[in-house]
């Protein structure tokens, strides 16, 4: 087990090298000379030349790449010109708020998604199933920013029960977490439903019934765990995708996390911050995938980790 984890982490280092290289490439392919953009239209050529030298942009691309990788290895992404602080430390101070939002959303999505999926998948075609299937399609179709604004309208403006912006108390967490969780819940519910319905057709479910178990005992004791195997994988992958949703949700609710930092950084051409944040997110996504794989083999004893990678 330990050996497999170490092996996977070593592979992860390679993945991170690839991610760093992509980040390097994309920033340099983006149109416009960074020094000119940074200094604005009023800068004189001397200033631009000075900044170009300071940023090392006058050196050959390969040299720049080697320097960039060396910096990345030291977790040094340079200094944000806007904030006047090291880019990575700025990113890291924003990380906890985003993590709080993501983990809460994931918890909501897993608890409600699995419950709804289980109820629907136990009896495909029945009333519960049709209600769940229809409502999850609706939830998946609404754009996140619209849902966020509607929730603010109803719960913050009309009912006045929840704050619409900022962070600090658990009440502040509710609306952004729910907004982020809704489409995720729908995905988990639909996937669980399909998986449970499929599992309930397996011969070992008949065996369980032949022992005189009640239908809830069959469902929870024999179908649930086996149905969750594909769900775990998707949750792991989707948590990475949650970052994309977080960017929008954090801006709608003025949540002081990574998402709003990235949007500000992109708008302000703060490349150092964009690079640091992108690199960190890539690392987080990789870790989630590793955890999903480990859980996968815990759920299904037939799966040996060595063959998964």
């Amino acid at each position, binding site marked *: 087990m330990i050996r497999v984890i170490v092996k996977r982490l070593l592979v992860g280092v390679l993945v991170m090298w690839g991610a760093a290289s992509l980040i390097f490439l994309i920033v340099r392919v983006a149109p416009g000379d960074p020094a000119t953009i940074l200094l604005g239209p009023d800068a004189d050529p001397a200033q631009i030349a000075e900044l170009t030298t300071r940023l090392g942009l006058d050196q050959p691309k390969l040299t720049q790449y080697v320097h960039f990788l060396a910096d990345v290895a030291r977790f040094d992404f340079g200094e944000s010109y806007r904030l006047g602080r090291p880019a990575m430390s700025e990113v890291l101070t924003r990380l906890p708020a985003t993590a709080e939002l993501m983990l809460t959303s994931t918890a909501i999505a897993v608890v409600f998604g699995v419950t709804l999926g289980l109820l629907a998948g136990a009896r495909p075609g029945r009333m519960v199933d049709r209600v769940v299937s229809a409502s999850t399609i609706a939830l998946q179709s609404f754009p996140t920013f619209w849902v966020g604004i509607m929730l603010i309208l109803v719960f913050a403006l009309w009912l006045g029960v929840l704050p619409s912006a900022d962070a600090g108390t658990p009440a502040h967490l509710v609306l952004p977490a729910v907004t982020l969780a809704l489409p995720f819940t729908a995905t988990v519910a639909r996937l669980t439903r399909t998986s449970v319905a499929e599992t309930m057709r*397996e*011969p*070992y479910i*008949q*065996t*369980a*019934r*032949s*022992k*005189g*178990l*009640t239908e809830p*005992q069959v469902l929870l*004791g*024999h179908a649930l*765990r*086996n149905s969750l195997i594909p769900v775990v994988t998707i949750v792991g992958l989707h948590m990475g995708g949650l970052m994309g949703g977080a960017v929008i949700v954090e801006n709608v609710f003025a949540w002081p996390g990574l998402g709003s930092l990235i949007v500000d950084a992109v708008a302000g051409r703060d490349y150092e911050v964009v690079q640091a944040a992108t690199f960190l997110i890539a690392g987080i996504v990789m870790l989630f995938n590793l955890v999903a794989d480990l859980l996968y083999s815990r*759920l*299904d*004893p*037939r799966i040996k980790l060595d063959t998964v990678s």
Partner: protein
Amino acid sequence: MSDMLELVGLVVDLPGPGGAVRVVDGVSFDIPPATTVGLIGESGSGKTMTANAIIGLLPDGATTGGALCWRGDDLLRVDRRRRRRVRGREIAMIFQDPLAALNPTQTIARQVGEILRRDGLDRDEVRRRVVDLLDRAGIPEPARRLNNYPHEFSGGMRQRAMIALALAGNPALLLADEPTTALDVTVQARILRLLRTIQESEGLAMLLVSHDLRVVAHVAHQVVVMYAGRVAERGPTATVLRRPAHPYTRALVDSVPAIRTRTALAHPLPGTPATPANRPAGCAFHPRCPLARERCRTEQPAVRSVAPDHWTACHFAEEIADRV
């Protein structure tokens, strides 16, 4: 309150695309205590549906008729709670494919001991009994195999675990649906011998569902032959196999290849089996029957006695013996 299961005109209808299909059509026979009854027929003859109806695990939408008399109740009419309590504890079932029939994510011990655990026995007692059950099912060193998963067992061992699982609830009647079909030939004989030993030593009643005459011949005291959802013939195994009173049984016996002689090639059954959805009028077997005549095409034969305990559903059973 007899421990004899009596099927009285059992009917099972399954929903189909063109309306309900009668897959079991008025089947009657008994399974006396401490007796093995072989239920034989081709695929589509309704033999598995008959077993599923007995344990009460028919597909969604199935409807039943007739009666299943067991310990003073008609199992088709008792409430759901009583029906569920019968499963596993009074009537247990062994399935065809033991790998598919065992839960891949639970250990053997957990699955075999589930009934005991749910009955509230403490952990040590459950463990002790599971070891004993696995031992009775012929699994060597059972204490060391408790935490194995089904995929870590061989095919024969899985079916032994399945048998242990079925015995866990201490049933009086065991239904075995093609228990050896998914196994290697060399393992089949051992599993059959085990089933016979267990049936005899525990005094169980057993219904052995099979398409294979040889399997039934080795284990069953009585045979019920089914064709297209109906009983064709039933009686003591030796009598039915030696002096069949139905042309279909006769053809089945003739279609078994004799292994010791090179000359006696098997005579395969002509024609294709009738299916319940496409059952011929009159006697369902008449399109394939060498004795068929006009009466067989129009009149469905009643099941009648040709000798004590020997029943047939053929108008002209008396002519079969002459046609050897």
